[in-house]
């Protein structure tokens, strides 16, 4: 029966990501390539931070609880900073690659815009970090046991899955905002991305008070989502138009030949 928990948690954690992948990425091979490359960049950042972690744990004092806790916080901060550095590196690489693509392609315009790249790479980051944060838990959710023999909350699996979903979506939003900030050279926006990333990561120290970590995370996610929506060219007007189905005129007015 615990296969139910496994599939339930998988769907919660990866449902939105899978839907986005299917409808917006899978159809375009170039996007798939950039998604995987983004995931790869995230992996490299994890590799680096785990190397540092491995070394520091070896040289630290295992018996001191305070030191171990400090080490954990250090590891989280380091990992977040490394992830953001790699995001920036990936941005630089994509800029170069895009020029190359433009030179090679027969068309006049770029085959993929920097905004699309921002979204795709953000989702790539999200996929990988989501997978890594939840795969161990999913493996154990198959059962037969559930969390709690030592008095932990029973909702561990469920809240982990929701946390992962938030992380994946956040990575996507961060990617969009980050690339946009780089394009427009708005360094405060970059700082905001890094700080919110740090904040979300540090919120997980609230666990096992799952409400204490999940609710702020979802608030941040919502805010970042709105910001990313704006960065991607969305606006309240567009949303209204979209919701009221007045898109026909709009389409005619803004129609671009393809």
């Amino acid at each position, binding site marked *: *029966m*615990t296969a*139910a*928990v496994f*599939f*339930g*948690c*998988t*769907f*919660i954690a990866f*449902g939105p990501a*899978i*839907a986005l992948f*299917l*409808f*917006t990425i899978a*159809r375009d*091979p*170039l996007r*798939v*390539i950039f*998604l995987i490359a983004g995931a790869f960049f995230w*992996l490299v950042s994890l590799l680096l931070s785990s190397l540092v972690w491995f070394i520091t744990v070896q040289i630290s004092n295992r018996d001191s609880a305070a030191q171990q806790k400090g080490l954990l916080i250090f590891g989280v901060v380091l990992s977040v900073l490394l992830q953001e550095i790699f995001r920036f590196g990936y941005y630089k690489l994509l800029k170069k690659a895009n020029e190359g*693509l433009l030179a090679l392609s027969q068309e006049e315009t770029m085959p993929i*815009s920097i*905004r*699309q790249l*921002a979204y795709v790479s953000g989702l790539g980051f999200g996929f*990988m970090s989501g*997978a*890594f944060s939840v*795969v*161990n*838990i999913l*493996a*154990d959710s198959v059962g*037969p*046991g*559930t*969390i*709690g*023999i*030592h008095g932990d909350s*029973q909702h*561990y*699996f*469920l809240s982990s899955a929701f946390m992962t979903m938030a992380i994946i979506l956040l990575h996507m939003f961060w990617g969009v905002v980050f690339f946009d900030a780089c394009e427009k050279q708005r360094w405060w926006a970059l700082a905001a991305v890094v700080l919110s990333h740090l904040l979300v990561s540090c919120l997980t120290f609230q666990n096992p008070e799952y409400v204490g970590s999940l609710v702020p995370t979802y608030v941040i996610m919502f805010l970042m989502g709105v910001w990313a929506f704006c960065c*991607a*060219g*969305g*606006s309240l007007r*567009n*949303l209204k*138009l*979209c919701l009221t189905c007045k*898109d026909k005129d*709009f*389409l005619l007015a*803004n129609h*671009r030949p393809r």
Partner: protein
Amino acid sequence: MIIFHFRFSEQGNPALFFISCFFISLSCWLYHRCACYQPEGLTLFCNSVEQKIYVELNNMVPCVRLLNATHQIGCQSSISGDVGVIHVLESEANLEWVLSTGPNPPYMVILESALFTRSIMMKLKNGTGRVAGAAVVVSKTNPAEGFSPHTKCPNENTGVYSESYDPTMAHCNVTVWNPLGNGLSYEEFDFPIFSLNDDNDTEAIRQCYLGYNLGVNGSTPEYPLCAMQLFSHMHAVTDTATCMRRNDINFSINPEMVCDPLGDYNVWGSTKPLNNTAKGHKEGESMVIAATRLDSRSFFWDVAPGAESAVSGFVTLLAAAHALHNVTQEAHPPRTILYTFFQGEAFDYIGSSRMVYEMDHKQFAIDLDNVHSVVEIGQVGLRSSSELWVHSDPVSRRNNSINVSSLIDTLKSAAMNLNVTMSVPSFSQPLPPSSFQRFLRARPIPGVVIADHQSAFSNRYYESIYDKAANLNLTYPANLTEDEQLEFVTETANALADLATVVARALYKQAGGADAQLINIKAEPKIVTQMLYGFLVRSNNTWFQALVPPEFKNFLKPTPPDYYVGVSQTPSHARTPTRLVQYLLANLTGTTINITKENCHSQKENEQDTESKHLYSYVWVQGVASPNSTERQGFCVRSSVRLSKAVSPAFDLLQEYSSKDYSTWTESRWKFIKARIFLVASHDLEMLTLGVGVGILLSSLLLTYIISSKADILFSSGREPANATY
């Protein structure tokens, strides 16, 4: 490069999708592997989720599956382990909860050892579907009413008393030897049964049960519930013929074995060296065989303390052999005394049937014509008053050509002047289960079995986990150190030493020795008490350490050895009791010789020596450390003590896996034995999780479809195509 990718992917769009999925899942898998198989020390960080869910129980002993020619016995779980909600059984009436009324089947039943009875176990066995398994809490004190999971008539079908020998005595018709036997060891259970030997484990289970599985004020308990999972999946099924056939099927390079024959090694030694290279009849030799058994068993796999059923007998024989050592060196009697310690006797006489077969087929140092008579020491540790019973075979006694009565007279006279009385049970009573029966099966040889019981066993814990030191009343005064306990001469040791003296004198007389020498034969209570301590309390003691080879010292444990016969191995991997008895017998009956360690290992006394190895065997023992150093002074012991294979002839010699004459017991193989407790979530919570998951998946599919179809509008600011446009 990019172009190539581009073209390739334009045609292979779905392929790329799968490749990406594969990549992601591969890296996840790798991560999981790496995270969980890191070197020790980091395991603390990696498996924390599993640690939050499961409490591993490490000191549980399973009941495993054994097979013979016709049956399988023992227990097994399903391949992925059996899970059940824990229920601590309070009384037999409480079974109703498990078998019918309890709302959350299947149940994992925790039994106090007082409830581990045939009636309860059979009810559980027939209540399958609602019973996932059972765990028995082994109590520290032995049940007063006695407990034996063995059959009432041990080794019923492979002894001498068959329909063809004497129908009136077959199947324990005259005497039921083990009336307390409930036969549980010979039942087949299709759920796992484990024993809980560790107080911490028991306490963990009890806490979990009390915390989660007791409803408030007797109401039905609510989820989450405490559950237990037991893994003991057995590979072999049906019977020995089937599993041995499957052993021979080689589909792969590494053939997968499913079962192994039970067996180990017999230990034998003689008062005069015998040429072991020349097999078959020894001209002019006449041997008195002094036999006993080395093994025991219990319901559970490797807990077979066998204090009364095995240790009392072989300790007596070892002490007798020691007592005879000096006398036989000075005045060797006309006949030779052969000491034999048989392994695997609990499983249809594996060791004795093998040795008799080898004697019969000229594969042993002597043959059956060399055998003059047999004196077997059975269970002798529990004699009330000073009486011991000399059992003999009524059929041989009726046959005047077999001189049983003179053997009995020899024993009786040897017991004179000592505080042991040898009595003879009624003449119609057959032999108790004994190795000697296998000799009688081959040919009518005079022989007796010495035991502490007149008819039924005085051992009330025959072949059970309770047949331990306490059963022999082996108690030491408090506040003794280990070494003081080793030297402390207990009542039991005195009694067994007296008996050993009687046996030694009887053997000497039976071997034709002069009566004048008898007074010099005396077993030492100190040796006996040291052996009892080593075999029943703590094998890792200073005395045993001094008598074993250096490479064997790691097998000595702070606990007594386990006397289950196990599966057959090479001589260097023989079971611990076998090798301990081998080294003890070598030290007690051999001589120290001054040769180098290398020569000792290569079984020769000097560089040119090629003959000694036929007569003697050499063991390099570690000896004791001199008082002012830690270096042990090793030395070489020369003796006539050897190991001989104790694997039923049905396997390696005859390959008759459905033999009715020889033991056909095999032990199934298994992958792992594991037990753990954890909580199980309610069905509702699980379904809720799945429902939420499916809901989120569907709604995000829908939402993404709408957004992506309207992306043009949503994300157009008029300048640039948006991020999800099509």
